[in-house]
């Protein structure tokens, strides 16, 4: 449904060209959820915003973003506005800043609906709003309230309803639960899981938390310093991680298993994207790094159904990059 080929998003900055997303390819199938996982600065959010082309002016995008074989990269801002909200919509991390504080919840919905369906009857639009709010577990009578009258979790539900009101094919959720407490997070994840089934939509779930995607995603893409280092089915990532970064990341997240008490961590810190390492970007922190890792950027190898950007798998399969 959504196919991304060789996507590059580079920024001009004072320090030089920042390669925030570099040669990334992956696809999202019908009704499939892809988890986009990475730490801050990995380019996961840039990639998410890049698909909708919500980027600062200094960004340069190249490659292909195919939505049902229709390339979004050459599209103008006006054409993109028709796609945003209708075909692809977005759920943001912080619902407080993405909702206008002086607009009633209802008006947020009506505005979105009217922009995309000009001439729609008021009653019809209100009905759509009611249905969307019901779907996320909010009493529709609350639509005449203002965003600040909602609690953090409820506000995020409003954001989700707003993203779904036009029944988009694809929803991009950027860290939808990061600013919430664990229990509220679990509630929101439950809502998202149910909606996915009910609305038959595809989803890209951007998060730094491998725990969140474990329950939600069908496939997982792991990002590191602008590169997609691994892309595979959910269980393959957790039980047969291929890339050394994926392995290290999995080991370093705290779990609730009380027998596992050794504190593992990845030494060093992520590179500066204005001046990334020449070869593999993870090489300086990688325990398995060989000479070639520091010299040449690895291509993507296909190993047992996983796509891995790492020289360790050179012998196993032929690269496609």
């Amino acid at each position: 449904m959504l196919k991304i080929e060789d996507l590059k998003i580079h920024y001009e900055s004072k320090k030089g060209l920042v390669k925030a997303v570099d040669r990334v390819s992956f696809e999202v199938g019908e009704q499939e959820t892809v988890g986009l996982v990475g730490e801050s600065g990995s380019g996961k959010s840039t990639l998410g915003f890049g698909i909708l082309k919500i980027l600062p002016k200094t960004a340069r995008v190249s490659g292909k973003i195919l939505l049902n074989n229709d390339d979004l990269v050459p599209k103008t801002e006006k054409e993109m506005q028709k796609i945003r909200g209708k075909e692809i919509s977005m759920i943001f991390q912080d619902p407080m800043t993405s909702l206008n504080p002086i607009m009633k919840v209802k008006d947020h919905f009506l505005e979105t609906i009217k922009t995309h369906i000009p001439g729609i009857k008021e009653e019809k639009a209100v009905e759509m709003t009611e249905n969307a709010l019901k779907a996320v577990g909010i009493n529709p009578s609350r639509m005449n309230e203002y965003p600040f009258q909602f609690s953090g979790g409820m506000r995020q539900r409003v954001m989700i309803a707003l993203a779904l009101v036009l029944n988009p094919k694809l929803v991009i959720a950027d860290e939808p639960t990061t600013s919430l407490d664990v229990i509220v997070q679990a509630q929101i994840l439950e809502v998202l899981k149910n909606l996915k089934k009910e609305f038959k939509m595809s989803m890209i779930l951007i998060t730094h938390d491998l725990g969140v995607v474990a329950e939600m995603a069908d496939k997982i893409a792991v990002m590191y310093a602008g590169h997609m280092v691994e892309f595979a089915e959910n269980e393959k990532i957790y039980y047969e991680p291929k890339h050394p970064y994926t392995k290290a990341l999995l080991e370093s997240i705290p779990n609730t298993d009380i027998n596992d008490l050794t504190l593992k961590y990845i030494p060093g810190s992520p590179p500066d994207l204005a001046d990334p390492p020449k070869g593999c970007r993870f090489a300086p922190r990688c325990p398995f790094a060989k000479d070639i890792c520091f010299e040449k950027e690895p291509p993507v190898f296909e190993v047992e159904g996983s796509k891995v950007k790492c020289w360790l798998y050179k012998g196993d399969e032929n690269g496609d990059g």
Partner: protein
Amino acid sequence: MAMVEVRNLKKHFPVKRTFIDAMLGKPQLYVKAVDGVSFDIEEGEVLGLVGESGSGKTTTGRLILRLIEATEGSVKIAGKDVYAMSKEEIRRFRKEIQIIFQDPLAALNPYMKVGDAIMHPLKIHNIGSSDKERKRMVYRMLERVNLTPPDEFYMRYPKELSGGQRQRVVIARALITRPKFVVADEAVAMLDVSIRSQLLKLMLDLKNEFNITMLFITHDLATTKYICDRIAVMYLGKIVEVGTFHHIYENPKHPYTQALISAVPEPDPKKKKKKIIPQGEVPNPINPPSGCRFHPRCYKVMDICSKKEPHFVEVEDEHKVSCFLYEK
């Protein structure tokens, strides 16, 4: 004698009311952020204080260090009553009690070099005979928290460091006076996963090396198991359960603790846990629910829960819970 003794600590913040409300005789309302908290921390022990936002865990940390004044209750650290001290006495005593904040960028003066920031506590408490000696101590500390080469980091400003490096500076500043007791307030919450574990390891090593007693405040149950000896779970200004991490993880008693543990997303797709997710969100602490404060969201609620406040019951050795399910 315990290193830290907290007894019936309370903090009620007055809610601002308008002049007209006051004239109309509307009563002054209070946010009961911390409402009767008691616990001990033994020397060299790390107590984890776990709770969601609004639980009062951060306020508790500040009250213990008397960074804000308590409404009621007492705190003894190393046998000294913190609330009986004069302003000047507590200022001098700060050499022994320190805090590591959540947001290291906000916690550091943007116009002060890293080295000067770490040296400042030494100057304030007159440690070291000369600036030269103090500088040597700062260098040693910078090396200890892995900010090497120290002479380079000494001259940098906080803005020029990464998040992890900044938190190392905050840790160095807190530990340079060799305090006996440290409050770590969400010290690793803002950092990325790969950096978070590095910092946890550093804190654990330093704690053992300097024999520090610590209150480790966090919203993330999973991080507590590496560093905490015991865990206290807080909900709406009260502690609901205390135990070793084995107790809390393997045998959580309070329905809230059970919910908290089951809500942690596991990085393991096959491990489908049975989730107990309470409805709704944490209620307003201005007007907390009667009886047990968790009762409106509790899946095992009984009649008595809304009428009376539960007391602590020792369910097993060192494992106490405040819930009517276990009261006899």
